[in-house]
């Protein structure tokens, strides 16, 4: 089962839920935790060990062969992302805009745009007992998270095919990286906080998940912080409220020390159990 931990708003507690849920489940069975928030991966901070094994990741970008180019301009015409501009005497390529679709390269009548690998980031992994961990980190200056998320998921498919439970720590927001990270999930946990910001962005995330036809539920983190409008919204929309994690300074302190909070707060452990019960029920 693939469980994606997402949110509209950033900083609501995706990583807290992802790390604790994965670690909790790993007490009794093999689990893979995958940090897909490739622009800012931080799940690894809570594992107590560094993911030292890894490899660089690459995306394919066209390179211009000036000697054979006939300057027909077709490459610019076929590029949906304006990543390639054909000037009268040269072709300019903008790697950070390129989506590696190969259209310019395949359609070039003189084959003057061969695709070449360009480093975009690094993937790392480690395994400790039942818990396996994979994270990817986009290089500074790279603008596109989707290709790296895609490669990371393919890597997990290959390396951890036999592991029954996967937890994806997703990027925040509702744009392409989130779509890619939740695409194959069997269930999406939307973590929010009971504030006007939390509610506003939760609504966007709910809309996105409905559009993707995903099964999903909500976890309210820092319960007691704001008001009860998130709960009222979920009730009115018929969205299952999976769990509530209390707003408690001691929990924040524990988190800030890099601890897995469920190991220190039985209330959190009970909420994790409630999340899993609700997911199993929803998925069956």
């Amino acid at each position, binding site marked *: 089962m693939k469980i994606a931990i997402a949110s509209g708003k950033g900083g609501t507690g995706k990583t807290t839920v992802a790390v604790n849920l994965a670690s909790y489940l790993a007490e009794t069975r093999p689990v893979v935790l995958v940090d897909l928030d490739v622009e800012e991966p931080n799940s690894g901070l809570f594992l107590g060990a560094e993911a030292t094994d890894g490899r660089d990741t690459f995306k394919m970008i066209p390179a211009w062969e000036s000697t054979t180019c006939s300057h027909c301009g077709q490459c610019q015409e076929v590029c949906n992302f*304006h990543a390639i501009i054909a*000037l009268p005497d040269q072709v*300019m390529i903008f790697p950070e*805009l390129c989506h590696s679709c190969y259209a310019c390269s395949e359609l070039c009548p003189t084959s003057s745009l061969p695709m070449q690998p360009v480093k975009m980031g690094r993937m790392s992994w480690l395994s400790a007992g039942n818990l396996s961990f994979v994270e990817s980190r986009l290089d500074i200056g790279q603008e596109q998270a989707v290709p790296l998320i895609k490669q990371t998921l393919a890597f997990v498919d290959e390396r951890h095919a036999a592991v029954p439970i996967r937890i994806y720590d997703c990027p925040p927001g509702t744009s392409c990286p989130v779509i890619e990270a939740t695409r194959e999930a069997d269930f999406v946990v939307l973590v929010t906080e009971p504030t006007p910001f939390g509610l506003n962005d939760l609504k966007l995330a709910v809309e996105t998940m409905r559009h993707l036809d995903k099964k999903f539920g909500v976890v309210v983190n820092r319960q007691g912080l704001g008001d009860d409008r998130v709960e009222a919204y979920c009730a009115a929309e018929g969205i299952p409220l999976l769990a509530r994690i209390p707003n408690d300074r001691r929990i924040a302190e524990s988190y800030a020390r890099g601890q897995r909070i469920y190991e220190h707060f039985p209330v959190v452990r009970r909420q994790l159990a409630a999340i899993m019960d609700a997911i199993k029920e929803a998925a069956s």
Partner: protein
Amino acid sequence: MKIALTAQGPHWDSAMDPRFGRTPYILIYDEDTDELTAIDNRAVDNEAHGAGPLTARKLLDAAPQVLITGNGPGGNAAAVVATAEIAIYVGAGNMTAKEAYAAYKDGKLEKM
């Protein structure tokens, strides 16, 4: 000399657009013929990414010698514009096109 201006509308009285890549219009003023033409760039609204290079490509087709704008082109657009010899003047974001041209003529705009 041909002067390009980034503007929110197609006329001299139109407000300038401080943005380069996402400007709705590029005005081209030909000083020799005293003719003002407008390139409609509104379709750029549909582009999630790559507005800069796209608008720069359009600018190059018009082949001006001078560009008057607000903030100045961003990195990608600037790279495209730099392939042609176009003098870029910035700081005209809060004027009308007419005022921006006058400010350029008076040497009041900063050259990039």
